[in-house]
């Protein structure tokens, strides 16, 4: 971050927002109430949309405004709305999904961030501060999403982890490369939308088959002898 103060104001704002996205990933990781997790996820979507809009005005690429709007609608409004609705219908909105060893999980998350900076090191040599930090930060968001997937037991919070991971990917595309070609971005948004809907259907399948949404109970198929 040594060059931080030399950057133009707009880029400083982008970096700060990027850092906030990462902070929201930490918040997701530590949050144990189902409804609060979904809310944090929605805020992450808002931050993401804001970052995209700022990048759009910084780079003068107008198609990014469209991506920002798409993100706002999909990640900050539609998916959280869908998740809250399904959680309410399943009666688990106010449930707790206890985080396994929160202290250890957060320490691991910190280590993951450092690891991501190390992975992004080779990129640094030929890029500006902004891109380098952005690649490291977005990789960290992806990895923290994966960490969330493995530390949670409820299907619904796992889905939030999955979607947060997707956020990290989108974030990488926006900050490192000013978005992907439009056809790809629309395709990805479509996939995410369909995935969210299928996940919504799946909650009911899981509950109907094992009477709970704790995916711990999904343990019939394995290679170990029983």
């Amino acid at each position, binding site marked *: 971050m040594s060059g931080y103060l030399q950057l133009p104001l707009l880029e400083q704002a982008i970096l700060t927002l990027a850092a906030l996205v990462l902070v929201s990933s930490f918040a997701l990781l530590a949050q144990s109430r189902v409804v609060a997790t979904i809310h944090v996820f929605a805020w992450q979507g808002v931050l993401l949309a804001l970052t995209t809009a700022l990048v759009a005005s910084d780079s003068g690429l107008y198609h990014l405004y469209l991506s920002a709007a798409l993100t706002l609608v999909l990640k900050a409004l539609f998916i959280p709305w869908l998740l809250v609705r399904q959680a309410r219908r399943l009666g688990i909105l106010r449930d707790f999904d206890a985080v396994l060893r929160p202290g250890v999980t957060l320490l691991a998350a910190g280590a993951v961030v450092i690891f991501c900076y190390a992975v992004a090191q080779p990129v640094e040599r030929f890029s500006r501060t902004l891109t380098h930090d952005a690649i490291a930060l977005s990789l960290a968001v992806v990895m923290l999403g994966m960490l969330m997937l493995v530390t949670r037991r409820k299907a619904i919070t796992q889905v939030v982890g999955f979607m947060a*991971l997707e956020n990290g990917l989108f974030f*990488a595309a926006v900050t*490192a490369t000013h978005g*992907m070609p439009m056809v*790809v971005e629309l395709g*990805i948004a479509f996939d995410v939308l369909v995935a969210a809907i299928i996940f919504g*259907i*799946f909650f009911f*399948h899981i509950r109907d088959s094992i009477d709970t949404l704790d995916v711990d109970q999904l343990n019939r*198929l394995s290679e170990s002898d029983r």
Partner: protein
Amino acid sequence: MSALVWTLLIPAVGAVLLALLPSQRLGALVNVVLSAAGLAAALYLAWTVLDGGEVGGGQFYVDAFNVYLIALTALVGLSTALFSRPYMTHEAAIGRITPLRMRLYHASFQGFLFTMLLALSTNNLGVLWVALEGATLATVLLVSLYRTPESVEAAWKYFILCGVGIAQALFGTVLLYFAAARVIGQPEQALLWSVLHAHAGQLEPAVMAIAFVFLLVGYGTKVGLVPLHNWLPDAHSEGPTPMSAVLSGLLLNVALYAVVRVKMLTDGALAAGVGHTPQLAGHLMMGFGLLSFIVAGLFLHRQRDIKRLFSYSSIEHMGLMTFAFGVGGPLATFGALLHMTVHSLTKSALFITVGHASQVAGTQAIDRIRGLIRTQPTVGWGLLVGSVAIAGFPPFGVFTSEFLLLTATMQSWPWLTVPLLLGLAIAFAGLFRHLQPMVFGEPPPGQLPIATSLAPVAVHLGLVLWLGLAIPGFLARWFDQATRLITGSGLL
């Protein structure tokens, strides 16, 4: 170009049409007709490409490499559709499936074929990712079609693992785009494979190396490479059998195709860069491939479910192909292309017979399937011949391709032939210790034959036998063109 449009349009329209069609009986028939039309379009496309060189260059690009996979995809699609007609009618008759789910099944089947063909024919690496993720979405509800706790678990695992895995591939694609945007002026062009391939030497090697690792892990999850394979046996064993046939015969191939395409770019970038291992991509693929090959071979021994057994055999063969593409060079690549063909033909034929076998026995548990050859000789012999073919016995095509692969390995990495031969022996033993009692044992009382459609099995195994005895000249030239595209020099 029009052939390409038809190839993609038929399954896309078909998926919508089948979703709207209420009649089960008609749905199955329309599914077959659509698949047959799709095959005709794909063959016409193949003929165009082989006759006049590659088609497209904008958002679509079809050359000798992917056109043969397109033809193969359409062929396996048709034979699976033919098989699924009596199979799904039987499933509906014994009450495992409702009319609404049958509609979902047929629509998803064509939807899946569409995503496969789109992934193969697109020139845009971003669209390739979208199509492969689309393939997961199209099939995930089919894995849980029976709604048993096991099938829901398998589908959940499939969804999460493949979703997370393929997310890594998207990150790799972003990095690739990042490297490309510095070289290629127009951002709309910077993900087009043909453009990237032309500029491969200028791409920043450090970024390309990281991007390849992410892409290999991501698409490798879909190929079923160990240790990212956990979803595969579950998804194959719990869904309806036609689904297992197309997952094994098509999806794994297409994912491997994606890996090979990005390997070609990475090789170009690393060869031009200074201070990098030019073989990095190849070595990674060899490592992952060999590990999958050995581990899956060992796991064959402890399977109790017949569909899990053959899905581990798929992992084993995909490992072998990944290894061969990693070795590189014309001989290994030619062998790998041939192996892709014979494996998907044999494996889809096997899953078709396995589906019938488990309907005859009324179970998928290996130790309760007995005496198939006495109850229904066609099914028993189909299973036996198919397994003999997949285990790599002469005179079947799998033997030919495995022999080519072994020869290529002996040329460039002589000491690696030892684990390869060992792995083949382990896998052979693993298959046949289970197979022998299922085919020859004493049938349980009251086991009755069922309505089958074994014509596709006969056609597939006949083709594999033909490829083993003598590869026809036009096909050899076809593979050779593809080899030339991938490695730069041909074999013939």
